[in-house]
């Protein structure tokens, strides 16, 4: 099961909160949320604190946006990944392509850094 909440943070920063298990079936909703966000915003935060498990399909969703983020110069930061989830990102090598940080403030800092 997955639960996704979208909200607009201050200063045009869009926040997507993901919680639960991101598996083959639930990753479709994640894909939708990120897809909508990249259409409208150039600063996106993804709260991964409550992700318990991510499958290869979930990783595939993040992976599929890498090129688009680069082309559109969109800042996307994932924060609060548990050790286990972070390890999954690392094994695949996604940590080299996506910005993964520990806390929300770090993430915001990074996004503001881009705009400067």
């Amino acid at each position: 099961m997955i639960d996704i909440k979208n909200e607009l943070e201050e200063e045009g920063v869009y926040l997507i909160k993901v919680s639960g298990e991101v598996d083959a079936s639930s990753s479709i909703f994640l894909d939708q949320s990120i897809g909508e966000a990249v259409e409208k915003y150039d600063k996106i935060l993804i709260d991964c604190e409550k992700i318990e498990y991510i499958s290869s399909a979930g990783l595939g969703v993040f992976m599929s946006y890498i090129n688009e983020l680069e082309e559109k110069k969109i800042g996307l930061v994932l924060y609060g990944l548990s050790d286990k989830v972070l390890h999954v990102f690392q094994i695949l090598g996604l940590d080299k392509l996506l910005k993964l940080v520990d806390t929300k403030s770090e993430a915001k800092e990074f996004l503001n850094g881009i705009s400067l």
Partner: protein
Amino acid sequence: MALSGKNIATISVVFSAISWMIMLASSLLIQFEKVNMVQNGLPIFVPYVFYIFFVLLLYVFYRAQVLSADGINVIDLLWRVFVTGLVATLLSLLARYFLMALEGSQHANNPYFLIIIFEVHLGLATAYLISIFVVWKRLVLYQKNRKLLRIWQFFETSFFFSFLFFFFHKGYFDISFNLILGFFAIMSFVLSANLKWVAYLNYRQKWNSILLLLLIAFYILYFLRTIHDLPGFIAATYDMTQNITLLALFAFTFVYSVFSMLVLLFNLPTSSVFEQKFEEVINFQRLSQSRNTGHDEKQVYDILLESSVSAVMANGAWLEVYNDEDAPMVLYHKISPKRRLEILEKLQKAKIKKLRSSDPVKDMQTRRFMANINDLEYRSILAFPLYVQNRELGMLYLLKDLYDGFNKEMIEIIRTFANQASISVENFKLLKEAIDNERYKEQLKIAKSFQKILLPENLDRFDDFEIAAYSKAAAEVGGDFYDSYKSDDDRIALTIGDVSGKGTSAAFSMSQMKAIFQSLNMIDLPLHEFTNKTNLALGKCLERTLFITAIFLRIYKSIKTIEYSRAGHCPLLYYTAHDNMANYLELPGMGLGVLRDVRYENHIQVGNILYRKGDILVMYTDGIIEARNESNEEYGYDRLKKIIESSATETCEEIENSIVKSVFNFCGARTPDDDFTLVIIKFK
């Protein structure tokens, strides 16, 4: 030899004709003896005996005829009888014409001649009556029961015994004669109550039957009168008034004819009701059988509309069928699409009546209801929904040109039709689903057998190591794979991988991966370049969100070296025998297809291991690491590491077994929900 109906008919008609001729000849002979006072001549009963033969053989003949025409309907049977009567009457008229032509001449009173004329009439009348008798028997016994059959058999046997009366009786119309005749009359009346066939005729058929019966009865009376009036009646060598069988036949055939006529006549006004009901039953049957005879849903709707219109005698109707996305499909009956919209508009203003008090008023617009509408053409409307599994499938609208045109019976029959149609449509859907499912299963079976071929049965090996592999897909087909390629006597390439996603799409990508692995290995590329090219090739085939993780390794026998790269796959587990330690080789790397251009090259690293005797290399997929038990714990890296360390002294296959057993024990009742694959190499 068994005789067919046709043979029986032919034989019996020939013999009955012969019997008749003997009867005639013997009658003439008796007359001759009588005139010439011959003593001890031919006994007087001889012609009568042959008459009995004649009757019985005729009966056999007609019965065979009627039996052979099994599927024949009532009208055709009556028609046959009528034709027989017509022919017999014409022949009789012909004979009488001769008689009349001879009036005044000396031959007119010639007893021989009169006897011939009489016997001809007797034959014709008997033949006609027997033909009626056989058909009437069939009509009486229409939808027979045991009791009726018994009565009939008794009646028929009585006829047989009535022949014998002749031999024991000499008087004219005395009490015993009258009693027997009375018995036959009563039996005729009793049997005439069996007229079930009348109900199954429609209006036109009833009129036809009445007409035919009228003529049949007329011919009966004609023969009765003619035989009675013929001079030969008296002049005959034996007394026809003693022929109680013939009189009884007259009585029965005539009484049944008259009864049938009257009943038909009285049934005429109600026949439309019966026809209506009968049609309803037929329509109901069509609706319920439609699923068997290759119809489609549209045809069910057509039948429903048609049946409903005829059941309530509607002046107009339409059927709306709701599809998931489009506007409803509408089937019209005697109404234009424009008029439909007008009526729907008028319906908004109309006062809606509930069909059942339990129906909620609120939903009236979409549920069953009845209303009188203010329209020049139509006065009342009945709307009825079709439901399949609580989902409204469509709506049936019936219109009539009078106020309150729908009564309770009509609503009931429409309800039945609607229900049956819903069941038929549902059956269609279920059948279609079942067929689709079956087809998918078949496809999966093919994919499964196809995938088995993709995983090699035996991996390439050198004599300085053992190798074992194990793979289990969670679904019919999986996305895990392993493969090997022997370049030369010094180098073997091995791979293990996992296609993201599961099932058929994963299996599909896996086959691409295998092709690329085999092709690129034919070219002698450094492992770094090999990994890079594999990624570029896959980047062109993989769907946007899919990627493949893999480990590529090469075993060089001469220098006892393993060279490996990790394309985002679970790290290799390497056990060194000298310190009895297993470690994960966390070499950086990236999944294939994650970056699909030249940038990928920067993320490739190649590692080297020098292997020694007793060392173990474990390649595996994340299905093992992520296998979960009932309390949702993962099997994890540590358990795998420990099991290798504890079973390191075993053979390759034993180690494989230990791991598989350990994973399944860990999962317990919970079945692994991902594919899991193992390749184990133990060096010697």
